[in-house]
């Protein structure tokens, strides 16, 4: 039986290697079509910088999904944390930027999880309500600023290092380490996963479900907060979105998480996430280089990627799927 298992693992590994080679090969061939613009240091920097935000969001989503919750308000949370981070950053420098952003992320997620817990409205529907509220707050703030004759919060150009090379590399590395430890090596992370996977058993094993979930929400909020900070640093300002349009900002990280769930069989999901985000960003990047404008076929392909990876992830699933 052990031999069987190890040989099965071996074929799995071989398959994985073949897939990686194919992907690299495909990128290599396409690279020639775009005159080598794809594989270059400057483009790689662009790629990494661009995928930093979705990577952090995806890490946060990982904890939320582990807790068995789907939350659409993340896009609006990012906007708020970026705005507050920017405003505080201008007043207090880096500490204000970072702490402000993170604090907003954590507080909002704490509110969300409390709302889901208390109202018992299914999280994805209540999330829509929270999205409306957060979007409105951001929009109202922007409007106030404009009414006072000011601009939407614009981060001091001297404070924008976190959204650019080389700081993003450090942030990503640190984020990876923290996310990995929290997800795999802490009581809090393990408890969240246990509750999300099988609440009754987790409770039987002595885990307090509500407490575990809320800690999970705080961890996720932490990552969303950092994503907000990077967002503010990257662009210098964020524009408030209304009418639920902030939801579309989480599609890419969502696709990355799904892809990571497929990769999970080979590597830890936390490590898989940056790979997945980079992979998807690369496809978009290539498409842009090939002259496909963003927002059209790129979006379509994103949708197809999500479905295809969803199908692969569910290949052996036999239970009831709603």
């Amino acid at each position, binding site marked *: 039986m052990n031999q069987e298992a190890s040989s099965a693992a071996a074929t799995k590994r071989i398959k994985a290697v073949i897939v990686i080679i194919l992907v690299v090969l495909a990128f290599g061939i396409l690279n020639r079509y775009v005159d080598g613009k794809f594989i270059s240091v400057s483009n790689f920097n662009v790629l990494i910088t661009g995928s930093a935000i979705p990577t952090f969001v995806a890490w946060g989503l990982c904890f939320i999904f582990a807790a068995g919750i789907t939350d659409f308000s993340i896009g609006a949370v990012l906007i708020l944390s970026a705005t507050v981070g920017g405003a505080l950053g201008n007043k207090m420098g880096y500490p204000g930027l970072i702490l402000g952003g993170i604090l907003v992320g954590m507080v909002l997620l704490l509110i969300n999880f409390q709302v889901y817990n208390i109202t018992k409205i299914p999280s994805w529907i209540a999330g829509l*309500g929270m999205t409306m509220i957060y979007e409105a707050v951001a929009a109202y703030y922007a409007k106030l600023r404009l009414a006072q004759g000011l601009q939407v919060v614009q981060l001091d150009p001297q404070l924008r290092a976190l959204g650019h090379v080389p700081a993003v590399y450090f942030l990503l590395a640190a984020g990876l380490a923290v996310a990995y430890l929290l997800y795999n090596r802490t009581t809090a992370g393990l408890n969240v996963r246990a509750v999300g996977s099988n609440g009754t058993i987790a409770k039987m094993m002595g885990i307090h479900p509500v407490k575990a979930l809320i800690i999970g929400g705080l961890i996720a909020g932490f990552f969303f907060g950092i994503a907000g900070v990077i967002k503010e640093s990257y662009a210098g300002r964020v524009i408030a979105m209304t009418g639920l349009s902030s939801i579309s900002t989480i599609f890419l990280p969502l*696709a990355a998480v799904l892809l990571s769930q497929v990769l999970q069989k080979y590597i830890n999901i936390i490590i898989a996430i940056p790979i997945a985000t980079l992979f998807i960003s690369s496809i978009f990047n290539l498409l842009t280089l090939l002259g496909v404008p963003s927002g059209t076929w790129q979006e379509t392909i994103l949708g*197809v990627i999500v*479905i295809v990876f969803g*199908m692969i992830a569910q290949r052996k699933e036999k239970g*009831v799927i*709603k």
Partner: protein
Amino acid sequence: MINMKLKVSNLIPFIAFFGLFLVFAIATDGTVCSSYNMKVIVGQVIPIVLGGLGVMFVVSQGSVDLSIGGTAAVSATVGAMIAAQYGFAFLFPVAVIIGILIGVINGMIITRFKVSSFMTTLAMLISLRGFLNYLLSKDVVFAPDGSAFLNGFYIQLIALVIAIIIVGYLFEYTKTGRCCKAIGENETTSRYIGINVSKTRVISFILSGVMASLVGVFQLCKLGGSSSTLGQFFEMRVMMAIFLGGVLVTGGMSAKIYKLIVGAFTIVVIENGLLISNVDGSISEAVQGILLMLVLFVTLRFSGGPIKRTKKAAAAVQK
């Protein structure tokens, strides 16, 4: 006795609707109740109910269809493009065929590959939105000639009434509708009784797609052409309406067409009332969010009640 209590819980959505209506009527000195505004309200309710009729089949199974906004936009846009070339007669057939196609794809992915309906239809929505932008980037799409009459209030109302009669009949009084609800109650049970769950599920997504495409055509004619915001967040509004009306997210026998209609009115009255009360646009969105969650919370709170009560009654009967 129990019947009466059950009815009380079913009344909550109605009470919520009339309560909100009353509040807005007072706040706006009756402007909300003016005949002109009533027409506006009904006009906004029409697409939600029309689209919701199809989605009800999906929701009653405990699944969701988030792709209808995209379906509406893409099917209507393609329909209008073809109608512009070959004539108005092609508008509806083409749109409906595309609606069916999207429904089949959704249904097949969900039943064959066991991907959750939430993920599948969300991804479908992203894809369709991208595709819509691609279509619009090539060409400006106008409503085809001769379609202006579709914009009329009464023709839309008549279309809605006919749709409610036909689809409502299908949902409430035929085996198909009952099977959908049974799947929502318990999918394993339904399969063990002998229902073809996969077929029923695909049919429900097709119906959802067809109704969405009809809404898309009406909306396109209303705007006079297609735009990238056509049908945007339509799916969220429909879902909200259904759940506000008191349909449980798990689906099942609690799914009723009248609940969809009540929910649609509630959501529109909230939006319309806030608009007329001159509430600041961004604050209005927050208030909407809060009100929606409040109504949902109350509905859920009371829909859990009757079961407990009947349990006690059953214990009494046993003794």
